[in-house]
């Protein structure tokens, strides 16, 4: 008989021992943990050692005009375990004027492009990222289009793009 996997509650109490007190909530059977930004990397590293070895996604939500929100940006780290199939959502909240998080690329190589996308579309820097370029928007682009104060139609950036002629290409 294989040993039963540790329950999510056991993992969370262990995480409290390392990262101090934090909020947890459950919705539709999904457990969410809100880690303070300074200890987020340490907490994620510990969770990885506890068996949450698959980083499913890194994304972000801009809570600019969301009712009842206390922070501007909420990063989402979706973790899963390939052995036990448990899932855990880790939230990290950051605010203007300098929203930064510690890069998790040292833990999961797959975070590389996901964090680049968060930088590109939300303007949240990942400190320690090995390749901090934009992912989907062109390098000349100046805005972060998935922020809520960016209009759906854009701000006309495309008109200012440099035109490459055949002589200069």
């Amino acid at each position, binding site marked *: 008989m294989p040993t039963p996997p540790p329950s999510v509650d056991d993992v969370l109490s262990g995480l409290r021992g390392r990262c101090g007190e934090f909020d947890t909530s459950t*919705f*539709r059977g*999904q457990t969410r943990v809100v880690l303070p930004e300074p200890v987020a990397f340490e907490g994620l590293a510990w969770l990885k050692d506890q068996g949450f*070895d*698959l*980083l*499913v*996604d890194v*994304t972000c*939500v*801009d809570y600019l005009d*969301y*009712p*009842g929100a206390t922070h501007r940006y909420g990063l*989402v780290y*979706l973790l899963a375990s*390939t052995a036990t*199939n448990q899932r855990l*959502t880790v939230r990290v909240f950051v605010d203007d004027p300098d929203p930064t998080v510690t890069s998790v690329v040292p833990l*999961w*190589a*797959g*975070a*590389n*492009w*996901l964090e680049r*996308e968060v930088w590109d*579309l939300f303007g949240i820097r990942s400190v320690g990222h090995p*390749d901090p*370029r*934009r*992912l*989907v*928007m*062109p390098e000349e682009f100046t805005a972060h*289009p*998935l922020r809520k104060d960016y209009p*759906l139609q854009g701000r006309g950036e495309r008109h200012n793009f440099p035109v*490459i002629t055949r002589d200069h290409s």
Partner: protein
Amino acid sequence: MSIATATVDTTGPETGARSEDYLWTLNFGPQHPATHTTLRLVLKLDGERVVDAMPEMGYLHSGFEKIGEHLTFNQYVTVTDRMNYISPMANNVAWHHAVETLLGIELTPRCTYIRTIIAELARISDHLLCNGAVGLDTGAFTFFLYGFYQREVIYDIFETLCGARFTNSYTRVGGLSQDFTPLVIEKIRTFLKTFPKTLDDMERLLTRNRIFVDRTKGVGVLSKAEAIAGSATGPVARASGVTRDLRKDEPYLAYADLDFNVCCATTGDCYARYLVRMQEMRESLKLVTQALENLPAGDINVGIDQRIARPTKEQVYSTIEGTISHFELSMANRGFEVPHEESYAAIEAPNGELGFYVVGDGNETAYRARCRPPSVLHFALFPQLIRGHTLSDVVAVLGSLNIIAAELDR
């Protein structure tokens, strides 16, 4: 543009500029027949040997996630069609699975079975194109045509079902746009009878073909540890020995009732990915057969009392609940209640884990509609797969990862 020369990652041993003078840079894409879609690779070559590769994406970026914040849950399904357009039905199912998870809707048994059937047909059509394209790029043109002919049959089934061949937009919140008709069931039965023979033919054409095996075996090897670290999912991860399949691990729709196997390989090369996809088509056939023969009777949409799915015309004209529900759902300031919450739900799409992180803020439009596309994470793995192989292997590796640029860039 200086990307090509300035930012290629050269973290190998001894990367002084002088020792690299003999390397040359090749731009592959964004418009190239073998990229199949709009993506770009900058390759650093030593003769024909690929020293490094830098994938570039974004040429097809259309702001799908931004659009998702301005379209209602039912309207946005048309945009999901255009993500992985090789298997749009799977995207439809994934999107409304995520929305229904947020809303906490329990689907009717008939709806779960129909969704299972169309998701599996979508898997077959996706794998046919992916494996067909790998064959095409490595020189097996006939194989590709065999696959494409069968895709046409699946398109025909979808057209009979919902009127659209390509952009189906078939699902709705809490149900489906159309029910199965006897003609659809007959066409699926015919497909189930004729397809195994074609699949046998395809396997005989390529699986033991010397040229194909030489081109794909041992090429683009992804180890199990690398697959997990790089967040690979779906056939790419399973070909590397990761036994993760959401259909078994987190059974959604009707998968808990049906009998099927998860197909895995251990070598992690292009050939293993081809084999896993070939075998998964047979498992999908098993699933479709079981689901079709056990298709429950009843409604396809959730009941009128839930005020989620549109009532039928008959209900609107003959019952007061139907009339009220129809008005409520049609009026701009009504619609249905959405919790101030957020949730993530994923399905096992043909390409891997396709999930949506949906944030609700009370109205019918998502506050945030994040799509977790498997292609992005697979494309990021490309440099480590191709290093050390030859230029002609680029198309084999690229094809076996099944990168769909529309899903990649969204």
